[in-house]
Each structure stands twice: as C-alpha cells, then as structure tokens.
C-alpha cells in the first residue's frame, strides 16, 4: 500500500515537473521579451513617466557627448548635401522622387543595454506613423527594429539582442554577411558568413548593405578588428562598433517607401 502511494506521489511529481517545464520552454521560444511588454502594457504607462524623468537627469550629464555626435552628423550631412548640389548642377533634371526612405526623428525614453535581450522605448508611436518592423538607426549605428507600437510610444528590439541580425557589407567591396551582437559589451559585434575569398582586413569599415528592407544601405557601423576563418568554409570578422549603443539619445526610425508593395511581391513569389 505504502509502495503504491509512493509510486503515485512520484508520478504526480514527474507529471507536474514535465508540465511546468513544457510551459516554461514554450514561453521561452515565443520571443517573450515582446510578450512581457504586451502583458505589462498597463504598467508601462506609469513606468514611462518615471523613465522620462530619470533619463532627463542622465541626459543632462551627457549633453557634451550628444553635442559632439550631432556636430559630427551635421558635418556629414553638409558634405552629402554639397555632393548632391554639385550633381544637380552638373545634370539639371527635375527630381521628383521623394527618396527611398522616410526618416522619423525620435528620442530614447528608456534604453536598457545591460541584458542579453535588450530593448528601447522611443517617444514616437502610431500617431507619428510608426509601424512594427521599421528599422531604427543613427548616422553611424544600427539600433534595432520596432517590435510594438502604442499611440505615443514604440518598443524597439535592440540590436544588442542575440536574436537580431542585420545584413552588412565590407565597404568598397561586394562581400556581405550577417552582423550580430557579440553578447559581451555594447560596442562589439560579429560579421559572419563572409566568403573566404574576401579581401576584407583589419581596419576596414563595415556598413549596412541595404539588402533587407529594414535598414537603409551605406550606414557605416564599425571597423573590422579581427578576422577568423571558420571551418575552412567562410570567415567571421570581429567588428568594433562606432557607436556605444548604451549611450544613445537621438535616433531615426526609418521606413522604406513602397514597403507594402515589396512585401506583397515577396509573398506572391513565395506562394508560387
């Protein structure tokens, strides 16, 4: 009798254990950072109130750094502008194209760079035209992808997230691969699956390739710091990022024009 009772207890324990572990693993596999954000939606509005104030204090002490970054960005934009003006003077054709991308300036309310799964909250939402799957960048960094949108705010899955990948290439070549965070610091990344024939070397600049519709092309993001041949099949390159993603304040949310058309085309092609 005692033996039977013990057997039942053991079976019950094992059953409960398996059930709880299955629930846990299902939650883990369902990209739960976003899940938790949605579950905690009600609490978020209160948290945002405090985040805005605490970030305000931090921003005050970072003003010098922000100014330097904005000055540098301005200089680059002026340089590009003068190039465009020069080209227009050389070939005076009426240009009616709105550009490939729409840029929405935003500032960061919450940036949490000290986890393995990081995220940001930006002060732009659905009322500003922000939608999920839009890219977030600066003039020299990939910041992340919009994961969820409320009326006034959006939640961005940071590039400092092991599930995030971006298509990037070695500047001046046609060699491209997948850029991902190294999971160690806020300035380290790995460019993987580069062909063995690539001439990319330490010191070369890495920029976005534009092969995905999320990030615009030619944003310089870092330089190669080490090259490693993997299994004799391809190269992995360590990349030092230009921008410390832990100390950002201003970013751009980007949307490619005709995104819906491209998505529909891809869907149709996949269905055939």
């Amino acid at each position: 009798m005692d033996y039977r009772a013990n057997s039942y207890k053991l079976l019950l324990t094992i059953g409960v254990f398996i059930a709880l572990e299955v629930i846990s693993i299902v939650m883990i596999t369902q990209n739960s950072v976003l899940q938790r954000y949605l579950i905690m939606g009600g609490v978020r509005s209160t948290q945002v109130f405090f985040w805005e104030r605490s970030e305000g204090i931090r921003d005050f002490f970072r003003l010098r750094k922000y100014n330097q970054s904005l000055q540098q960005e301005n200089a680059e934009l002026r340089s590009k502008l003068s190039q465009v003006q020069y080209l227009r003077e050389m070939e005076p054709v009426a240009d009616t194209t709105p550009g490939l991308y729409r840029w929405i300036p935003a500032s960061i309310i919450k940036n949490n760079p000290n986890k393995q799964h990081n995220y940001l909250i930006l002060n732009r939402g659905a009322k500003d035209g922000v939608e999920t799957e839009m890219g977030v960048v600066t003039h020299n960094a990939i910041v992340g992808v919009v994961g969820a949108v409320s009326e006034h705010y959006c939640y961005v899955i940071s590039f400092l997230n092991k599930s995030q990948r971006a298509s990037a290439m070695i500047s001046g070549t046609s060699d491209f691969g997948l850029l991902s965070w190294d999971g160690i610091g806020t300035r380290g990344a790995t460019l993987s699956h580069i062909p063995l024939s690539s001439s990319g070397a330490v010191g070369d600049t890495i920029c976005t390739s534009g092969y995905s519709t999320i990030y615009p092309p030619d944003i310089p993001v870092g330089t190669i710091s080490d090259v490693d041949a993997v299994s004799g099949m391809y190269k992995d390159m360590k990349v030092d990022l230009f921008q410390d993603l832990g100390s950002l304040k201003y970013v751009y949310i980007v949307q490619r024009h005709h995104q819906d058309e491209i998505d529909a085309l891809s869907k149709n092609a996949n269905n055939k």
Partner: protein
Amino acid sequence: MPSYLRQIIIYAVVIMLQVITNNYVNLGPMIYICMVPLLIMYLPLDQKSYISLIIAFGLGLIVDILSDGVMGLNAGAATLLALVYKPIFYPVFKKNTYSKKFIPTVEESDIWHHVLYLLIIIAIYFLFYIAFDGLARTTLLVSLLRYLINIAVNLALAVVVDVTLFNKSR
C-alpha cells in the same frame, strides 16, 4: 509574527532587491543577479515535492515578469532546481530522510557545507538559464565564461544575503 509570514516578507524583499538591481544597475550584459536559488533552498524540506515545484515555478515567473528578461527562463530554471534540491541536500549535509525539519542556515550547519550546497544549486540553476538563453546563438566559450562569472558573482552575493537576511530572521 508567524514564521511563514516572515518567510513570505523576506522572499518579497529579496525578489524586489533582485529586480531593482537588474533593472537599474548597469552590471553589463554578462552578469545576471539571481537570488531565486537561495529562495528555493529555504523551501520547507517536508513539503510535498509537487507543491515545491509549483511554488518554484511561481517564484521564477514573478521574477520573469518583473525583470527585463525572457519570460520562462527563471520559471524553467527554478522548476528544475525545485526537483533536485532535496536529493542534493541530504548527501551534502549528511542528513538522513528523517531529519526533514532541519533548516540549512549557516548557524545550523557549518559554513563549508552551506557554501557547497549553494554552489551546487546555483550551478544547476544557471546551467538551465544560460543553456536556454540563446546558447545556440552564441559561442560555447562566451556561454561558458558567462556561466562561470554568474556562478561566482551569485554565490558571493547569495552568501551575503543568506547571512544577513535568512539567519537573522530565525
């Protein structure tokens, strides 16, 4: 104050301290402060195993919801630990199954057995946590480094919390 109520308050304080530390102190992406193994260690040994599993799962889920992490990671690791903490306890403290009322505080056991027990349960906890926190997406070396750093940091902190909160409360 009844002892169970005192224990619930201590558990709540420890969880809040853990959540605040992880959310507001920048310790870098490699370190994750987690006191859940310590809380599971102090679950009553004479409690039915399936109840310990459910409590541990609940504790882990609360931490998952309050932290900026992946939901299910702490819940899964805590559940695994709740299954094995009793079978590990008896050989480490050299107690037989009849001494279930024994509470493994530093005052009631010697410090080395206590630290050894903490080391084993923290190692098991982080084995699950790091394995499911994207082992396939990062190199084995980085995961191993992260594992060892977290065991060392959390063991040191767990001993401090244990001595200051759990022993003085009894």
